[in-house]
């Protein structure tokens, strides 16, 4: 058993101290939950702490104010630098900064604050315009002290690189960034700080926009800096990963519409796309905000990157999204400045707390529950079932919102500094200080549910071949002795993704139930709820969802985002997605996910550009592509050593294929085979 665990850790590149940290985190959470039994737990805690110190681990855990916790953290942190690196980027993975409550993350930060200002001017701004200023000022002063500490350590190195880093870090204190290098170093410094202080999935925001004012004469040098920056962001890949390796949220947002209606992109938009393609690593990822006005050459550049198989960029359609954001209540200019959470959920960078991935709602689970609990089935019409389903949706969402709203966030003055509204109100981001404080939920299994309802209506009410109680029995027994029926259901001629009136109507009806269930409800910060049709949990949640009437057996994966595994034409799927009703609160990430073989895309490059252009015009919300063949995936599963660099797109991020759990590999293989028409 022990050897198996060690082998597993070796394969997954999990280090021993990381396991210890996980154990410690669990222990400390339990400790916090038992306020009245602290005596006993304190002894246990000291014991654990002592044990950890044997392995060189430091735990920063204090009952001090947050800003003083930062002070202690920076004191405890080591400084580590490789002389070959042009940038300084260091997360001390052996320090666990204990946040007693859930840390805020899963969103980008507006790094323009630190690029366009100095820490001195930021402090001045806080003093003149802010409230509750002491906490912010102190936080910045601790950061300044930490910068001094780094500079002192780096002064021991004699290299030009180290000298340049020192000069740049020092300059951060009293002047805005002066050039591209300076700006990139600042972004790296703060990105590391956020991760070090326990925030996870902290994205990089609209970097082309942040860097817009910096000109360069030497393009080769600029390219090299951007590539080096991207490599730095890839550092601590395992540390930053959440549910699985690659789930890091290191996302760069590029391009986008300006409030005056023109399209913004610059030389950095191109350089980042190129760099991410060339370094061919899972991190960082890119998202390109596209519009009908996006230049063709930029779309071509994006498609070249997608074609290389790294999964980036994800395309996000401003022409659809911005009006939806406006309608929802994000003010005009704010909507135009949207970024996304770690994957795809729109968020107003620098203005919203919006935690967009707080709950995964499963349409399929509600379907299973509804069918299971139907009574007096002989008297029920199809609309009665739909009504019953709707009530269950409402019920599940009420519970979800109630659970979500119990979340108390850990205060984060460090991040709050980057939110102007937190400064002026003096309220921490964690306590609702941001301008927008909306919550988002994600959904899964809509395709399974639509297909299940289509089959149910046809077989029970149109063809009258079976009764509802037959279906209850079949699903309960997971299609036992009904394999022919199961195959028939899998091969139904009508299914999710087809752009017919009937299927669109049913899909929008079910989506509408979810949107309505969340409408007009407010969270503790008076923020609203929103929902989207893409969720990371389609595989994990599938493993605990009963059989559905689309032929899917129990405990198997649910459908991925807005996708169709029935060899459906890309144009049809895009047309379907463009006709879904995302209005009101249905914009929390809606990704069309398609698989394409490398041969098809490389021999029809121009046609794929046309596909994307027309798809944008028609109005898909978002889109990502996995350019991979089943042949490669199957071979890579058997011979992982030959495919160490193979990258695939997993829900909203890219990852090394060899790092994925077997269940994900199998699911990708199955999807690829279906896409290529090799299996039904």
């Amino acid at each position, binding site marked *: 058993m022990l050897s198996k665990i060690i082998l597993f850790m070796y394969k997954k590149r999990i280090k021993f101290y990381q396991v210890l940290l996980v154990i410690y985190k669990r222990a400390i959470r339990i400790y916090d939950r038992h306020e009245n039994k602290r005596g006993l737990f304190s002894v246990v805690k000291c014991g654990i702490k002592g044990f950890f110190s044997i392995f060189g681990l430091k735990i920063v855990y204090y009952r001090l104010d947050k800003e003083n916790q930062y002070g202690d953290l920076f004191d405890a942190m080591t400084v580590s630098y490789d002389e070959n690196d042009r940038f300084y980027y260091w997360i001390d993975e052996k320090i666990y900064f204990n946040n007693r409550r859930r840390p805020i993350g899963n969103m980008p930060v507006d790094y323009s604050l630190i690029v366009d200002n100095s820490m001195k001017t930021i402090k001045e701004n806080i003093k003149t315009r802010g409230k509750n200023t002491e906490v912010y000022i102190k936080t910045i002063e601790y950061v300044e002290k930490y910068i001094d500490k780094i500079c002192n350590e780096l002064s021991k190195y004699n290299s030009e690189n180290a000298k340049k880093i020192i000069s740049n870090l020092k300059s951060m204190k009293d002047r805005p960034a002066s050039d591209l290098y300076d700006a990139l170093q600042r972004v790296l410094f703060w990105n590391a700080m956020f991760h070090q202080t326990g925030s996870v999935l902290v994205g990089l925001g609209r970097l082309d926009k942040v860097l817009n004012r910096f000109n360069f004469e030497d393009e080769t040098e600029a390219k090299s800096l951007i590539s080096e920056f991207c490599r730095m962001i890839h550092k601590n890949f395992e540390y930053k990963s959440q549910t699985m390796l690659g789930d890091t949220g290191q996302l760069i947002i590029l391009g986008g519409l300006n409030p005056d209606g023109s399209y913004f992109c610059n030389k950095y938009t191109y350089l980042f796309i190129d760099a991410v393609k060339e370094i061919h690593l899972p991190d960082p990822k890119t998202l390109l905000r596209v519009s009908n006005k996006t230049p063709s050459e930029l779309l071509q550049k994006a498609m070249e990157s997608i074609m290389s198989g790294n999964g980036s960029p994800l395309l996000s359609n401003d022409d659809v999204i911005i009006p939806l954001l406006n309608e929802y209540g994000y003010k005009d200019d704010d909507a135009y400045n949207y970024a996304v959470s770690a994957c795809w959920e729109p968020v107003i960078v620098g203005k919203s707390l919006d935690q967009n991935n707080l709950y995964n709602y499963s349409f399929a689970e509600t379907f299973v529950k509804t069918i299971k609990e139907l009574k007096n089935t002989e008297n029920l019409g199809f609309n009665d079932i739909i009504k019953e389903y709707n009530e269950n949706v409402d019920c599940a969402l009420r519970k979800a919102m109630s659970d979500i709203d119990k979340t108390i966030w850990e205060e984060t003055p460090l991040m709050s500094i980057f939110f102007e509204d937190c400064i002026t109100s003096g309220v921490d981001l964690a306590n609702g200080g941001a301008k927008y404080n909306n919550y988002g939920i994600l959904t899964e299994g809509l395709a399974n549910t639509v297909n299940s309802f289509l089959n149910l209506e046809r077989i029970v009410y149109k063809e009258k071949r079976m009764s509802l109680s037959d279906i209850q029995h079949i699903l309960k027994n997971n299609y036992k002795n009904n394999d022919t029926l199961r195959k028939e259901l899998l091969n139904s001629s009508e299914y999710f993704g087809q752009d017919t009136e009937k299927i669109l109507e049913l899909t929008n009806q079910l989506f509408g139930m979810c949107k309505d269930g969340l409408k007009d409800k407010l969270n503790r910060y008076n923020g609203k709820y929103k929902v989207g049709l893409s969720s990371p949990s389609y595989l994990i949640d599938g493993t605990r969802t009963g059989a559905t009437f689309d032929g899917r057996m129990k405990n198997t994966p649910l459908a991925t985002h807005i996708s169709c595994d029935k060899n459906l034409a890309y144009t049809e799927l895009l*047309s379907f997605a463009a006709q879904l009703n995302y209005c009101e609160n249905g914009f929390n990430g809606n990704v069309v996910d398609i698989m394409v073989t490398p041969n098809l895309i490389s021999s029809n490059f121009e046609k794929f550009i046309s596909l994307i252009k027309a798809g944008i015009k028609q109005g898909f919300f978002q889109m990502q592509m996995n350019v991979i063949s089943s042949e490669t995936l199957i071979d890579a599963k058997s011979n992982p050593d030959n495919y160490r660099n193979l990258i695939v797109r997993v829900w909203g991020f890219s990852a090394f294929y060899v790092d994925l759990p077997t269940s994900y590999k199998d699911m990708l293989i199955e999807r690829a085979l279906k896409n290529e028409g090799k299996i039904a």
Partner: protein
Amino acid sequence: MIDDKVLIGNIQRFCVHDGDGIRTTVFLKGCDIRCPWCANPENQKTCIQKFIDDGVEKQYGKMMSQEEIIDIILRDKIYYENGGGVTYSGGEPLLNLNIIENVLKELKSEGISQWIETSLFAPTDYVLFAMNYMDNFIIDLKNICREQCKKYLSGDSDLYLKNFDIVVSKYKNAVVRIPVVEPYTYNSENIYKIIQLLKRYKDIRIQLFKVHNLGMSKYKNLNMEYSCFEEISDNDLVLLYNQLKAINDRVEIISL
């Protein structure tokens, strides 16, 4: 009557191999010749063919109204920019193109580009009918040696050559597509004749492709005998490409 249902093999959207741009391909059932390498045997007969696949009853072919066909084609209208449109294929689409005349008329009035992928083994009247509506032709060039054509394809090469001249004289930009498979199309006598023929039409586009052993499962479903053949080597394909390149600049090797 526009509501009368007509027999259609299949309608496939987002086709990238059937002409310029993104196209919707309408497969019509029925074909008078029998190419031994045929990858679409389900479109040879002019009737619906049922079969059982893994215990599930399925069928090749369906009855559709012309309105339905138009509706499906127009759903992708936005994707037809950059030269895309609809392509009629088969089977031999010329044989039954008249059954969807309303579709042809409607799409013409909508300004949708209409192409046809044809073997040209059809009465000349049918070709002339198609020319009223088609914006371009993809012409399969298989075997034009009289004896071989009859033997391998059950086709009439004289009729073919007559139709070929009529079409290519009008459609200067026509695409001639040569399936390269030994010995049915790739033999010295036929290749010589093909080159002689193509020398006369300088403007046309020529596409070569290697024929693969495809469609085996369809033969099984249809209870038809499938005869495997040896695929031509890449070297031979390039050799042929070079011969054609010498007479026409617009030749390319494609992969289907």
